[in-house]
């Protein structure tokens, strides 16, 4: 009993965040009676864990639901079903009061530093507002605290009285990071923090994020579509396609040995800054299917070059193929999964026939 408790506590400490079968649908309303006539399946059964002090990245095309995952985890959006455990605590079961206590612990840095800062509030206030609201430090130390945070993020103290429009993109992103950091969080969701910035500024911001992680022991969920940045910053990487996680592994493993055809295509499309490297691009045909009406079976089968008959009937199981390497693809089915999938396919075919006859 006692041992169990200790084990559980250790487990708690190891994983800061656990996402279990998270589902988020956005209802489509009809224009007349506001009836729900369908769902946009933005996030469809996504599970992952993040270890304390590590960085997990989610990559994928736009519209694949990666930002929605980030926002649902913070409860900026309500879930449809599933669980998100933060420090072992299910954040969807928290009351308003408890949620308020949790808020400073989980923070977010948004994509576009041009639209995520209020143009009417000076920078010192942008960073300090929430500090005062949540009583992070006693009022007497407030000024010093804000200055300290600003210095940690590479901003000067005299920037306090300036307004966001006076800053360049990179500095604005520093302000956004300082705003998140000021609440002394454990966990920060970085929603494409560098995609709006120049290459040289990107490097500065990435270095800053890494530096802060070392100094403050932060855990990041890094959402991005830039695969070279992701490789640089993250410990583990999840690849999303049309609302589902198709592959998950440690960074080195995933980059050296991508399994899912979508991941392979994604990696082959990275432009390499060397004119002599002949690129062997796997060009995906067509574009992302609509998440309101995803294809049956494997969601990727419409664009996949290894598509088999089974793919269009049975959705593949998200299974551990090598230790720590998860992938959802029929190509890597073992006997058990194959048998199960074939059974489902036979069932689906029979159903189809029946419907066809009617």
């Amino acid at each position, binding site marked *: 009993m006692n041992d169990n408790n200790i084990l559980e506590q250790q487990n708690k400490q190891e994983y800061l965040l656990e996402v279990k079968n998270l589902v988020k649908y956005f209802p489509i309303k009809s224009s007349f009676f506001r009836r729900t006539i369908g769902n946009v399946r933005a996030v469809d059964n996504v599970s992952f864990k993040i270890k304390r002090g590590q960085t997990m990245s989610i990559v994928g095309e736009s519209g694949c639901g990666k930002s929605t995952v980030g926002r649902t985890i913070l409860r900026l959006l309500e879930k449809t079903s599933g669980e998100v455990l933060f420090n072992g605590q299910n954040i969807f079961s928290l009351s308003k009061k408890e949620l308020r206590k949790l808020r400073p612990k989980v923070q977010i840095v948004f994509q576009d530093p041009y639209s995520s800062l209020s143009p009417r509030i000076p920078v010192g206030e942008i960073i300090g507002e929430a500090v005062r609201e949540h009583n992070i430090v006693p009022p007497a130390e407030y000024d010093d605290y804000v200055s300290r945070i600003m210095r940690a993020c590479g901003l000067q103290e005299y920037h306090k009285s300036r307004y966001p429009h006076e800053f360049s993109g990179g500095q604005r992103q520093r302000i956004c990071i300082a705003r998140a950091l000021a609440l002394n969080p454990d966990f920060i969701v970085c929603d494409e923090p560098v995609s709006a910035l120049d290459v040289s500024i990107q490097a*500065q911001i990435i270095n800053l994020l890494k530096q802060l992680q070392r100094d403050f022991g932060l855990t990041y969920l890094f959402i991005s579509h830039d695969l070279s940045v992701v490789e640089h910053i993250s410990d583990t990487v999840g690849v999303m396609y049309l609302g589902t996680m198709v592959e998950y592994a440690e960074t080195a493993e995933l*980059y050296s040995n991508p399994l899912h055809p979508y991941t392979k295509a994604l*990696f082959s499309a990275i432009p390499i*800054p060397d004119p002599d490297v002949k690129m062997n691009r796997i*060009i995906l045909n067509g574009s992302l299917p609509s998440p309101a009406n995803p294809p049956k079976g494997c969601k990727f089968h419409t664009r996949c070059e290894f598509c088999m008959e089974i793919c269009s009937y049975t959705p593949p199981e998200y299974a551990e193929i090598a230790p720590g390497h998860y992938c959802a693809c029929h190509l890597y089915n073992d006997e058990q999964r194959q048998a199960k999938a074939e059974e489902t396919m036979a069932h689906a075919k029979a159903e189809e026939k029946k419907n066809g006859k009617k």
Partner: protein
Amino acid sequence: MIFKKQKNNSSYITTKESRRISALNRRLTRKLEKKRAAASSNPASYTTTMHDSNNVVEFDNVCTWFFSDVGVVKAVDGVSFNVPKRSTVGIVGESGCGKSVTSLSLMQLLQRPQGQTVGGEIRFNLGDGKAFNIVNTPNSEMMKIRGNKMSMIFQEPMTSLNPVFRCGDQIDEIISLHNPKMSKEEVKARTIEMLNLVGIANSSGVYMMYPHELSGGMRQRVMIAMALACTPELIIADEPTTALDVTIQAQILELLKDLKEKVNTSIMLITHDLGVIANMADYVVVMYAGRVIEKGTAEDIFHNPSHPYTIGLMRSKPVVGKKVTELYNIPGSVPNPVNMPDYCYFRDRCEMCVEKCNGKYPPEIKLSETHIVSCWRFEQEGQILDYPKSVNLEDL
């Protein structure tokens, strides 16, 4: 304390100063507009000949300035490079380095009267040994060139298509404008042919669709179809893939490469993604703070980057498969565009300074037949060519 305005702030100007600046701007822009009007009414002043008939465009010490409320912003200041026929020239640089302004000067799409090309020549090849100096070309002539001889693909396909017209109509407009003799049916057939060419499978369907019904990649394809509609000699692609995903980016780049072969055009590719440049470009021009600091073939730039800025840019980009603990970042930031220093613009951020860097702005130094760099470090090694020619504000 928070609300106190700081006077030592570099962007702070007094009312008196501000009045002086706007009076000066008014005087200068009026004078420049007059000069322009005189030049553009006389065909002799805007027809020239190309220095090399194998080039589509020659930029020769182009200076494009903006007369803004805080002073004169020298967005482009003495830029020279050539775009040879049937090749892709990539222009790289940070935002605000003048790469877009260079292309806008070429299209004569600058916001006048604040934005003025105050010096230099942009020679555009019209074939048969004829060329126009775009700087002085009147609007009536420009309208025949724009969209017909050169066209532009803009950065954001979301905002550059008109939301209230069908995609087909928008392409039709360009074709019928430049080919007034074509009948409506012919124009439509041509549009659908163009849509097919850019790889849109359902071309007659897309012809009838509004832009919001298409995805980002498809919209960019429509933009490319529009740019290609009159088989121009030059396509300016201003960050054509920045707003797109990696997989769609790969599709679009492949498409541009293909089309270049099919239609025989030159492409001026503006981007800050070095990966894209390496894949696409034959020649690369690196710009920094309104000046060209290095130019050469793609091999020159990527295998032998010579200017400290180019080297920094290469090192600051994480590359898949290359593990580094910390990314290099170029210290400091771009100097204030209103008060550019006399010495090398990159000196304050440079880690390889030599003594000469404190002196004049470095000239173009020829390292090899194709490779030219503006940096004092190569003074001994290469052959010194010209200094970038700017215009004195007092001479205007």
